[in-house]
């Protein structure tokens, strides 16, 4: 019998060894040539583990990658710009200043006329020059087909002055043309036939890297564009892969296989402490974690209650518990925009007593059970959270409970929030909109009665007037001052509560040189100065 057991064990070992045969220093390097069509690597491949990653091959991982190649489809352009494949006429630098990118320069001729100079040396991947006709066609194509691009092109008309000069006429005076044209969805693309952006054979961009392989939601491979008009990158090939699980992304960064791993969860920060493989780059992004309040709910109709909810928040503690201390508190929505840094913490510094007094004043008195009541009804608040905001939601619940508010947190899919918004059955939820861009459009979106992000039904006459003035303001200083006035007014009415910029952590390999931290990191990972060092 002993013999049988030994035989059985040997058999089991053999079977395991068969499977373990793949075990080894498994670094794969796929070869693909320009123009290769999408070939799904889900097909079991037999890439040898002995192939070593080329020193000139950069590997990048993120939560997701593009689902298609059409830059007018939502969020495809983000990935194209980030990987250096797509280019915009203008781009924000790390300091938030808008600079020419594919454009050579811009000049404001008069309050409603701008002239954009193009680069005669710039070409598309197909070799076609980036001239005025093609750029205008590209922008008009975006206006026609891209819902997200439309607000940024509103009030602008384009005409050709000469082969490399575009005239922009605006309906409003002093419209921020370069800022608007720096919007991600306005990637310049060749729309002449046969470029339909359906597959690799029908795309034509201008970037320093060309896409040579694409598997939707899985992998994109880029190779250097030798005809690039600007400084050519030294890294010849980039592989971008999707790693959906956040813990796996952390381990992927720590394993050293990837040079850049985006969307690292804040909870993984500790794992990078002392790591000599990768370090975290965390620049506060231009977005604000905002608690949107439903102003149609009876308990939230009193502005004092809304203000109390904000005064009662210790944002430093929230930053620590919700973002592992990787963000900085902001109390106004525009505060996360570098241009409005003075408005970061203008209002609502943590004041528990003031919050309690406001609730008392509003008639919500503290009961023996620690809950506040008014006319026999408890003060309740149901906060809906999704994605990475679970910990923040729980920290908020804890802080509001101390004030005597019966707060509950419902964490789930974003679809639940959308449904609740549709039915009106919600008290509060968290979302983080970008705050960098055309201030008038951004603030209108948040606080005008028809604003797409005015979820709670905020409709304040004074705010509306200020928003109208902002839209027609002709001077940058005047616009800035009006924006600050709007922030002040909104803070007094408190239709929303601002917490902090949602941290965007990027793990960067210690073997990568030239990585530039940016407040819009999602469009600025690749630059031509990147180098892989030993």
């Amino acid at each position: 019998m002993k013999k049988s057991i030994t035989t059985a064990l040997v058999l089991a070992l053999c079977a395991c060894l068969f499977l373990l045969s793949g075990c080894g220093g498994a670094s794969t390097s796929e070869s693909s040539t320009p123009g290769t069509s999408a070939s799904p690597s889900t097909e079991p491949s037999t890439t040898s583990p002995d192939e070593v990653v080329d020193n000139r091959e950069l590997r990048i991982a993120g939560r997701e990658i593009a689902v298609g190649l059409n830059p007018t489809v939502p969020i495809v352009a983000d990935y194209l710009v980030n990987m250096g494949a797509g280019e915009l006429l203008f781009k924000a630098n790390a300091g938030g200043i808008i600079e020419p990118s594919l454009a050579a320069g811009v000049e404001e001729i008069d309050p409603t006329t701008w002239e954009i100079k193009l680069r005669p040396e710039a070409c598309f991947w197909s070799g076609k020059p980036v001239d005025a006709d093609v750029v205008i066609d590209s922008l008009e194509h975006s206006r026609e087909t891209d819902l997200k691009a439309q607000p940024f092109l509103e009030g602008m008309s384009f005409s050709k002055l000469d082969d490399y000069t575009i005239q922009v006429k605006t309906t409003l005076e002093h419209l921020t043309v370069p800022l608007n044209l720096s919007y991600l969805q306005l990637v310049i693309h060749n729309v002449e036939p046969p470029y339909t952006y359906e597959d690799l054979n029908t795309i034509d961009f201008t970037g320093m890297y060309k896409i040579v392989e694409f598997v939707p939601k899985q992998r994109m491979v880029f190779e250097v564009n030798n005809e690039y008009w600007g400084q050519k990158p030294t890294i010849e090939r980039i592989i971008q892969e999707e790693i959906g699980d956040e813990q796996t992304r952390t381990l992927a960064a720590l394993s050293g296989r990837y040079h850049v791993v985006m969307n690292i969860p804040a909870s993984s920060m500790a794992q990078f402490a002392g790591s000599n493989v990768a370090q975290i780059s965390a620049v506060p992004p231009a977005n604000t974690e905002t608690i949107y309040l439903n102003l149609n709910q009876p308990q939230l109709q009193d502005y004092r209650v809304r203000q109390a909810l904000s005064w009662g928040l210790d944002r430093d503690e929230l930053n620590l518990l919700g973002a592992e201390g990787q963000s900085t508190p902001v109390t106004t929505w525009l505060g996360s925009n570098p241009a409005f840094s003075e408005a970061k913490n203008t209002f609502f510094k943590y004041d528990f007593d003031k919050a309690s007094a406001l609730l008392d004043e509003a008639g919500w008195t503290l009961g023996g059970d620690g809950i506040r009541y008014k006319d026999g009804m408890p003060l309740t608040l149901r906060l809906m959270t999704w994605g990475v905001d679970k910990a923040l939601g729980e920290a908020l619940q804890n802080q509001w409970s101390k004030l005597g508010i019966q707060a509950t947190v419902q964490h789930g899919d974003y679809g639940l929030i959308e449904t609740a918004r549709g039915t009106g059955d919600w008290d509060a939820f968290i979302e983080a909109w970008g705050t960098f861009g055309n201030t008038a459009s951004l603030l209108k979106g948040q606080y005008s009665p028809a604003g797409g992000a005015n979820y709670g039904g905020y409709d304040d006459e004074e705010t509306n007037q200020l928003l109208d003035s902002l839209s027609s303001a002709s001077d940058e200083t005047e616009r800035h001052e009006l924006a600050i006035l709007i922030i002040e007014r909104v803070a007094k009415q408190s239709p929303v509560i601002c917490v902090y910029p949602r941290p965007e952590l990027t793990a960067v390999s210690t073997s990568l040189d030239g990585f530039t931290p940016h407040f819009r990191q999602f469009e600025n990972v690749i630059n031509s100065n990147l180098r892989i060092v030993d």
Partner: protein
Amino acid sequence: MCKTVFRRLIGAVITLFCATLVLFIIIRLAPGDPIEIMLGRPGDLAIKNTPAYEARVAELHAQLGLDQDMLTQYGQWLKRLVSLELGTSIHTGREVSIEIAERIPATLMLSLAAILIQLVSGVVFGIISAIRAGKILDHVIRLFCVFFASVPAFVIGLVLLMFFAVTYHIYEISGDANIYRLWLPAITLGLVGAPQLIRMVRANILSELGQTYIVSAISRGLPKKQIMRHALKNAMLPIVTMMALSFTNLIAGSVVIESIFSWPGIGNYAMNSVLLHDYPVIQGYAVIMVSVVIMANLLVELLYMLIDPRLRKRSRLERGLENE
């Protein structure tokens, strides 16, 4: 036999039809509109509630037939399904059948490897545990079973990843499905699934060893090996069922492991589609999985008939009675 198979096939078609109806209704009951999810992801500028947004949503609804009533939508889907068309993904704009076909090989590869590990370890350790019942080796195996049955799969997966990919660099984290990346997710799935099988093999063999035919065999002086062979043959039936169920579970539900190991299989794909409310993908995936489960059960029944002479005999008897 043919009649039984035919009868089972009819049953399978009816089950599949009922499943499509239930699936269609359940998927539509989930909150959230797929078009709004696709267009309305928070970004830089709020574009909702604008006439252009409303028009685009309506246009896409009409384009995908989502503006029609539920019954019409179901009828159209069923019509497409009969002609083996699964529709087009809302998010990628690609054919669902192509997307699923791209991912099936990866899932199959992982499932087969995992099932092999489960089977080998289940049978081997189950037999050893039964033979050594009450001894140290049996206790060790049972402890192993309790441990791996109680620790969640994602914990085992992450610990193994940490150990092999980060500490020892002998496993590669990437989005590829290749033979060199197979072993770790397969071992994880194998470890998670093996305890059940080990316990079942052990219990079945112990039960068989107590049967009178075994006592009779021992009293007749048959060698231990031969006795074990007899016992194992009879203990195999439930194992076949379990392996079939385990295999269908692995194909349909190794979502967590596929996600942790970034394995581009069908589970991961389905999970993402559920979050995006990509109706055609979810429906296509669900129909395929229901079909796989039905087919697996059908195969198990047929295997039973082949393995178990009693069932063959019963089938023959039934046929004889019907002829009379």
